[in-house]
């Protein structure tokens, strides 16, 4: 059999090879095994933590906050972005405020949020809401501004009301760019959940990882990270699924109207 140099199998082999190599490094004590427990031990504690319900609970807590912040931001900032893209005066009024707030690095907002909301869920939701604002807002504005003028004029010619023009023409036409904003925000959301849980929380996966490290339950720490990596990967895949289905709907609609 000829060896396919670009096969996905190569990647899988390297990926799986990490496990025995890790195991070996740890068993031979090339790195202090206190910091670097054998992979078998990590996977075993991942197994235990998953089936004791510990990690699923922490992930659920984190997901709840992430979802609340993310959707709240989407509900507020996509319509705002559409308004700013459509009406020059709205854009001009808000522009300076946005340019002043945008350079604030997201973690710097965490202490402010702690001050106002304490250490509960509301704090994390606010932090995520604040951070997701920029990619969602700026991409929506861009998307709306770059809509083909002919589309809008056609809508006007056919006597579509403003509301119908927004839902039937502007939203679909700007949706690829809006989706870009949503995708960027998704990655940011996950980062911010972990940050806010590390800085001020008593549960959630970010807290779990940091806390395991502080209690020197190193295998649990790695298990938590592993589950976080899987979570990140799964969310990304889920979004891609959503993305293609939304665009499929969009395509179907345009075909139907034609």
């Amino acid at each position, binding site marked *: 059999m000829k060896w396919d140099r670009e096969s*996905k199998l*190569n990647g899988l082999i390297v990926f799986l090879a990490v496990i025995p190599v890790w195991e070996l490094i740890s068993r031979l004590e090339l790195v202090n095994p206190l910091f670097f427990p054998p992979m078998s031990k990590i996977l075993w504690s991942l197994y235990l933590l998953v089936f004791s319900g510990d990690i699923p609970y922490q992930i659920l807590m984190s997901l709840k906050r992430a979802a609340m912040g993310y959707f709240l931001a989407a509900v507020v900032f996509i319509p705002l972005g559409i308004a700013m893209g459509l009406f020059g*005066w709205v854009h001009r009024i808000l522009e300076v405020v946005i340019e002043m707030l945008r*350079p604030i690095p997201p*973690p*710097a907002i*965490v*202490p402010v949020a702690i001050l106002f909301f304490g250490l509960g869920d509301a704090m994390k939701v606010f932090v995520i809401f604040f951070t997701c604002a920029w990619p969602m807002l700026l991409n929506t504005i861009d998307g709306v501004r770059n809509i083909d003028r002919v589309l809008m004029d056609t809508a006007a010619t056919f006597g579509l009301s403003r509301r119908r023009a927004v839902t039937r023409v502007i939203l679909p036409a700007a949706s690829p760019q809006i989706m870009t904003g949503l995708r960027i925000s998704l990655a940011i959301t996950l*980062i911010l959940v972990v940050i806010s849980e590390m800085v001020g929380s008593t549960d959630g996966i970010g807290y779990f990882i940091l806390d395991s490290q502080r209690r020197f339950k190193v295998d649990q720490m790695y298990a938590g990270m592993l589950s976080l990596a899987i979570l990140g990967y799964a969310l990304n895949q889920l979004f891609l699924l959503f993305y293609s289905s939304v665009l499929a709907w969009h395509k179907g609609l345009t075909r139907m109207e034609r």
Partner: protein
Amino acid sequence: MRPLKTINLAGLAFFFSLLLLWEISSRSSALQVYFPPVSEVVLSLFRLMLSQELLGHVGKTVKRFLTGYFLSAVLAVGLGIILGYFRLAYAFFEMLIEFLRPMPSVAIIPVAILFLGIGDSMIVAVTVYACTWPILINTIDGVRNIDRTLIHTGRTFGLGQWKILRRIALPAASPYIVTGLRISLAIALILVTTAEMVVGGGGVGYFILDEERSLRTSNMYAGVVLIALLGYGLNQLFLYIERKMMAWHRGAAAEEIV
């Protein structure tokens, strides 16, 4: 100087009326601890600058930021060119990269604490880790999208592998690389501030959180303003350098054509 017409008067007016509203409502409110008047925040900022208390923190943050950022740039561009150019290398590592990339990079902080303690090297290490991904991915993309004719031409003219990488692949992929570098700039600041919040040990991130905990809120806001200015300044510096670098690149390209 910008012509007067392009200054967004409406936006500025809205921004300053928000500040004024903040000032007035704060002065007449019982919640002054949470919402100190703007004037006090500005005053704190000046006081802290003069007392040089803040400058020490800024120095620490900037040092960590620059070290981490430049290390990751060198590492990721080098690695990215190799992975982009040699299909086999990419096939081997693609899966590993795809698995590690979606994991929120801040989750690496506990591991870094284990191995490196809570000093500067730990903060630099997590910054390098996090910044590597966008630069790496963009560099790989950039190199893979190079016009094959360029490389073939290089071969025809008898350039060695190393020369092709350095003289053809690197410049041709540079627009992509610059994109990665720009994304990483924001990420580096996020990681530095987060790590400072989690482990303490000085820096603006630590300062903000510490002032919040001791309820010196006007100092906290001053810290937030300062780090926003820092982020803004670094971004402007980057854009300036980018213009210079790309101008050089354009010049060099033109020269070679002649």
